[in-house]
């Protein structure tokens, strides 16, 4: 059973709301967060609400770093280009991209969503568990650029409203025209009567959805939460916890820091090539990635589906039929959408062909799994949604 919350943990402004809803609270990277809400159905119901309707997540634990130019025009763009692997110059104002900050070794400090707020003004949304590390790293890595780095992490209550009906819910709360907002674009508009708030068509579920950023005082936060729940009533909105967030992102093969990406995993191994723009110019980690590519990959991240009974869990060993350990499960779970047991794993390149059989050591028992294509789940794209760059 999950350990009950005991240590001194940080809380989001909506902590009291989660407790009042009877959420099961857990320690997530030093934060006391809801893992599921048993009173409204629990993890599987939450997962299905997001796939088929709409759900809302409190993601206020995420960090936010603003980087903007001081006097030198272009300094913020240059800084962001230097500390992230995707090409921020390709972003229009109002557009966002998935990216990552790397160590000089080409491994991960963290993955980030880079939002271009202005010509020379960016907002990086980072993970909760790596907040302090990220902020220190950004400050250190950008000190030669004429830009300011502002930690806005405690300024926002961030809600993720996710699912095919998310657009209907959020449209009721804003004057911005959401039909004109493509996937991975954002705008500023009214949110629940608050003017000029950030509304982004982003998320971590593999589904259409929005993330809204409102002031972090508890009163405003609770009012916005209540209005979101009210607006979502007719669409069956329910609060969703970190448990469903994990199964949703796993089905969509989205990386989780400490699992598919970390300080000991490089970009090629993680399979995030398409978000890494080697031709854009120099950036931290680039040289090491160049060498790593020349040296060739030894392991790669693959999707697995269990053939035998049993669930491959994070950290379980992958092995050959004879028992030789060859790899490790990074994330594994039953898939509520597919009704099968799925996992992501690092295994040697030569064992990674689609259809290949790998064995997973499930508490001493070698259980058969098959390499399958990822993502495990892909939503049908709506015409309004655009592909992210």
């Amino acid at each position: 059973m999950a350990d009950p919350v005991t240590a001194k943990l940080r809380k989001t402004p909506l902590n009291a709301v989660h407790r009042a809803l009877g959420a099961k609270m857990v320690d997530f990277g030093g934060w006391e967060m809801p893992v599921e809400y048993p009173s409204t159905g629990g993890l599987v119901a939450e997962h299905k609400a997001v796939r088929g309707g709409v759900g809302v997540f409190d993601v206020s634990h995420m960090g936010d770093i603003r980087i903007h130019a001081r006097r030198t025009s272009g300094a913020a763009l240059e800084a962001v280009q230097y500390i992230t692997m995707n090409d921020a110059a390709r972003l229009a104002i109002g557009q966002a991209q998935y990216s990552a900050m790397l160590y000089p070794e080409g491994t991960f400090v963290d993955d980030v969503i880079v939002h271009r707020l202005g010509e020379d003004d960016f907002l990086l949304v980072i993970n909760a568990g790596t907040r302090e590390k990220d902020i220190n790293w950004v400050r250190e890595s950008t000190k030669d650029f004429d830009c300011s780095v502002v930690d806005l992490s405690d300024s926002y209550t961030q809600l993720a409203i996710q699912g095919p009906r998310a657009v209907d819910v959020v449209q009721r709360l804003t004057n911005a025209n959401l039909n004109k907002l493509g996937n991975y674009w954002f705008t500023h508009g009214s949110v629940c009567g608050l003017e000029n708030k950030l509304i982004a068509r982003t998320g971590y579920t593999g589904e259409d959805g929005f993330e809204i950023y409102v002031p972090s005082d508890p009163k405003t936060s609770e009012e916005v939460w209540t209005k979101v729940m009210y607006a979502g009533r007719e669409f069956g909105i329910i609060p969703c916890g970190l448990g469903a967030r994990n199964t949703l992102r796993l089905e969509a093969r989205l990386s989780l820091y400490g699992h598919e990406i970390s300080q000991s995993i490089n970009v090629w191994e993680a399979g995030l090539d398409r978000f890494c723009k080697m031709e854009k110019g120099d950036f931290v980690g680039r040289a090491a990635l160049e060498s790593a590519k020349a040296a060739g990959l030894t392991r790669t991240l693959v999707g697995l589906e269990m053939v035998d009974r049993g669930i491959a869990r994070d950290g379980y060993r992958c092995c050959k039929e004879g028992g030789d350990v060859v790899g490790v499960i990074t994330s594994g779970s039953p898939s509520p959408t597919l009704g099968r047991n799925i996992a992501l794993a690092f295994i040697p390149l030569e064992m990674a062909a689609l259809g290949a059989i790998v064995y997973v050591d499930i508490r001493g028992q070698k259980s058969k799994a098959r390499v399958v294509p990822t993502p495990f789940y892909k939503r049908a794209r709506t015409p309004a949604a655009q592909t992210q760059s």
Partner: protein
Amino acid sequence: MVYPTTYRYTKDHEWIDVKGDSGTIGLTDYAQCQMGDIVFVELPAVGAILEAEKPLGTVESVKTVNEIYAPVSGEVIEVNGELKDAPEKVNSDPHGQGWLVKVRLKDSAEIAALMDAPAYEAHLSASGKEDSH
């Protein structure tokens, strides 16, 4: 949910319903609430020998793997085969159809060391767990 007064309970949230020289073992309502949606149950085979307080099997929810401990020592004489295809019965009827195994008791004196229902409920309250549902 009411904890049956004829059952005995462990601090690890198993129950045992003793009838004569055998007992039926299951998970308490509190345990299934904590685990959430149960998707997989792994039980010993008939004939397996259990030792009190040692693992007897695992119950997995979407999120967690939970080891189940034997409340008493004894030999497994029946397993709940229905859980193979319907593990969710542990959620829906933890004190009834969601039972796990039946054992022939090795030493009925072990039962005396277990909690009765009021003591178990007090155990839940003392650890601040009565409001966790």
